């Protein structure tokens, strides 16, 4: 029995992706073998559209989650608790939301615990001629699919404390 659970998701789990940060630290991950049945994905799609009518679906696969989308090229599922490891090892730095630009990372916290991550996709003015902007994010909602969505158009379980990070570097020749 023990052989079934020892090393689950670790560096020594043959089913886990060899996923390392820039500092060569392994990140625990687990990969589902099978996709969800189409009728469940369809139901999830309808529920998500009802929940957040403005969200635009991009793709639907249950083989990766939000962290897998943002940090592992959509290849595996990584628990949200590992987000700080990526941010630190891959030399992200926290920025104010007003500094965010396309490609930056937004992390959703609840009770100070990271719960969800997405990529800033677009920054749209809220009204024509207005300085206020609305961030559109691309993120994978658990196994329910990838959506382009407004910052707070996410399931409540992810929390509403959004913090931004960037890995942008200023080139030395500039």
């Amino acid at each position: 029995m023990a052989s079934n659970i020892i090393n689950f998701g670790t560096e020594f789990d043959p089913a886990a992706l060899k996923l390392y940060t820039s500092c060569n630290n392994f990140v625990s991950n687990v990969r589902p073998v099978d996709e969800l049945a189409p009728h469940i994905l369809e139901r999830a799609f309808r529920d998500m559209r009802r929940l957040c009518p403005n969200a635009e679906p991009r793709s639907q696969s249950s083989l990766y989650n939000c962290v897998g989308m943002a940090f592992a090229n959509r290849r595996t599922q990584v628990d949200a608790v590992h987000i700080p490891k990526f941010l630190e090892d891959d030399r992200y730095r926290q920025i104010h939301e007003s500094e965010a630009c396309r490609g930056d990372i937004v992390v959703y916290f609840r009770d100070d615990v990271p719960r969800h991550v997405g990529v800033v996709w677009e920054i749209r003015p809220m009204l024509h001629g207005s300085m206020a902007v609305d961030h559109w994010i691309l993120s994978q909602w658990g196994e329910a699919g990838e959506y382009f969505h407004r910052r707070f158009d996410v399931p409540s379980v992810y929390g509403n404390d959004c913090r931004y990070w960037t890995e942008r570097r200023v080139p030395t020749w500039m």
Partner: protein
Amino acid sequence: MDVTALFRHIESSEFASQTLVANDADMFGEIAAGDRSVQYLIAASRDSAATARKILSRVEELRALEDDFRYRNARDAAIATYLFVLMQYNRPLAILGAESVVRACNVWWAKRIAVAILSGKSTTPLVGDATKPSPGLHRTAEPHRTGEILLAARSDSRLIREGRVANQVGFQKVTSNTGFSYSSSATTAAKSTTLVVNNNHG
């Protein structure tokens, strides 16, 4: 409430869809625990050993279900939820269920919950506070930004006072001259979380 009706709801695609937004096993447990049917089932399994055994049998039935081999078991979320339910008050039965599920090859959440049970990790709190909004499919609200949220109670206050949940999720009891609190270093988040507990029960 009729256990069969609870089974029917938990095995529905509506319930599966609700749990799909989970990003990890803890979140899965949290979403499941917010569902009324799951709360009823936990209460029923606490009050009746026969119900708990029925849940274990249902785990076995669903695991063995011949499904479309191309996809994950369509009752994956239900199996995971039943294990989660058993884990609350019937740990020996939960271990039996987990041992059979962990070998199955077409389940995912069920396997993750089973691994958590067999490795002795807690996956989320006991079901509890009915006053908290159900974490299921609700859109998040924009933050008020009036202050910091300090209380991260992950279960009902009675259990926290008794110290059981505090122990289960790795909180440390910190005694001071004003009473006591529980502090946690269980997460890698920058700040630690403090559970302030009524010191009348200290």
